């Protein structure tokens, strides 16, 4: 019988890009999965198939192609709903990505519900996409934006949430399910239950969690949930916003235009039903169809297996990286509390230099502030290096990273 590690190794053949060589004929070691993942043939082929065989706009025309494309598009909605354990697929809104999903909520829900003096709570380890929309909203409404700080272990200090909630002014608590820099997995249950007790709405930025672990939205009990397809084998330009039907029905629309209307007259319009009310204009049909194949691919492997595979890789990488003198690791030391994301600095060598040097050995990591400058300020660094893993990565690749890091020490005479 094939071992689990072999099974994961075996799926590499589905990803054409993993076979390519980079720089001086080096094998590509792709560790920038938190930014975007590679795509399997199943996804690429589904997109080609759409364009080659049934390209057509959806929802309107009655011809054969339109019927096929509409069915394939709407089929993805059902697949997403099942994947997240949601009963009503009308609660799934397709957006461009997590950023657009959060902006949609800030604009459409936030503008109707947040008033002067109200509080929106976010955290210190958010991506800019879960900070800036709230800055725009709170500035416009003269409301306040507050942060849950992180402790030395990179975990949220939930006492502060209690303090904010006790003011009675909090309208929304918005946080990432998993930090894109530290990998910390947020204590979702605790946060949601505190908020529910206080009657406060909760938004979860799941861009880093949904691709890597089983998520049961029926159990989580949040109000808004947002993630991106391209971080989970899917194409770019497809994301999902899920919200409870009662909330979506009351919300004002986001973008106005075609498909989101029921009837348009010269001076007034009535809105279409969910989910179309929030999907103005021709959507990203091909990529939504491709996204379905990505979810099917992940489900075939099993989300729990994926989580275990990444946990194994993360444990191994942390062990090996600890042995390198002068290497600073950020975030919790307990692998179980984090995803497959490791941020580090190497002595005082700037992450961009580390990134460039190890790139010569074919290792692709991310160097920079990871769109998390508030967190960088907290960590008192301008940037970090980040290696992030996915289903196709192996321990041998981590060995290549470690060897490449030793080159950095040589170049900088550390």
């Amino acid at each position, binding site marked *: 019988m094939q071992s689990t590690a072999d099974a994961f190794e075996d799926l590499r053949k589905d990803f054409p890009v993993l076979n390519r060589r980079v720089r001086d004929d080096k094998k590509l070691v792709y560790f920038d999965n938190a930014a975007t993942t590679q795509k399997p043939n199943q996804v690429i082929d589904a997109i080609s198939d759409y364009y080659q065989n049934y390209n057509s706009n959806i929802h309107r025309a009655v011809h054969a192609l339109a019927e096929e494309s509409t069915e394939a598009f709407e089929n993805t909605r059902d697949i997403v709903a099942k994947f997240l354990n949601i009963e009503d697929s009308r609660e799934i809104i397709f957006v461009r990505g997590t950023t657009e999903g959060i902006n949609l909520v800030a604009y459409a829900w936030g503008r109707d519900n947040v008033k002067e003096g109200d509080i929106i709570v976010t955290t210190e380890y958010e991506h800019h996409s879960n900070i800036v929309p709230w800055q725009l909203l709170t500035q416009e409404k003269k409301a306040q934006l507050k942060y849950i700080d992180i402790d030395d272990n990179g975990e949220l200090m939930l006492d502060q949430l209690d303090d904010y909630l006790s003011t009675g002014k909090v309208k929304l608590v918005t946080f990432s399910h998993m930090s894109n820099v530290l990998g910390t997995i947020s204590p979702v249950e605790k946060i949601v239950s505190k908020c529910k007790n206080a009657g406060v709405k909760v938004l979860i930025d799941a861009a880093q969690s949904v691709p890597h672990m089983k998520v049961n939205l029926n159990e989580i009990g949040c109000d808004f949930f947002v993630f991106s397809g391209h971080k989970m084998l899917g194409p770019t330009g497809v994301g999902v916003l899920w919200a409870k039907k009662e909330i979506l029905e009351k919300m004002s629309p986001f973008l106005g235009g075609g498909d989101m209307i029921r009837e348009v007259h010269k001076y007034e319009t009535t809105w279409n039903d969910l989910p179309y009310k929030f999907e103005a204009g021709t959507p990203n049909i091909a990529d939504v169809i491709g996204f379905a194949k990505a979810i099917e691919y992940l489900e075939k492997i099993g989300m729990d297996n994926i989580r275990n595979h990444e946990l194994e890789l993360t444990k191994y990488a942390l062990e090996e990286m600890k042995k390198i003198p002068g290497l600073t690791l950020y975030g919790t030391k307990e692998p179980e509390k984090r995803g497959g994301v490791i941020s580090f600095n190497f002595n005082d*060598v*700037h*992450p*961009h*230099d580390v990134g*460039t*040097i190890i790139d*010569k050995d074919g290792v692709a990591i991310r*160097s*920079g*502030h990871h769109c998390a*400058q508030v967190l*960088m300020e907290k960590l008192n660094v*301008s*940037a970090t290096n980040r290696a992030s893993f996915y289903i196709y990565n192996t321990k041998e690749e981590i060995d290549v990273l470690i060897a490449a890091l030793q*080159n950095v020490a*040589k*170049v*900088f*005479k550390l």
Partner: protein
Amino acid sequence: MSGDPIYTEMIIEYSRNPSNFGKIDNAHIHQHDANPLCGDTIDLYLNIDDNKISEVKFDGHGCAICMACCSVLTEMIKGKTLDDVKKFDKDELLSELGLEHLVKTSPVRIKCALLSLKSLKFGIYSYFVDKMKDSESAGNLNEEAANLY
């Protein structure tokens, strides 16, 4: 890695021990700039006496390329007249560090290399326009700076 054309002895040395590193209080020109890509930030300080750059310093955080280029740029412009500095172009700076190839080979890292020069050009432009009210001398330095990379 020893053959890497970016990380030469000179660049490593400059990044470890940058020249003219520090601050000038109440400098005639103080220009702050950042590279949104990687979060590099620099502050460039210049004093102008008799139409010459009498004093120059910089501080900030950046990668080895950014720090080395800041160091070399400040060394190269010290004592020069403003007219000379206005004409200063990117090839002069890059060739001093053997980094000319970055223009072609690394559209990403060229931004690290030229952040200093961009700040210099913007700084001098603002000096002429805002302080000296002399937009003629400022010329199109702002456009040059904006189109540097």
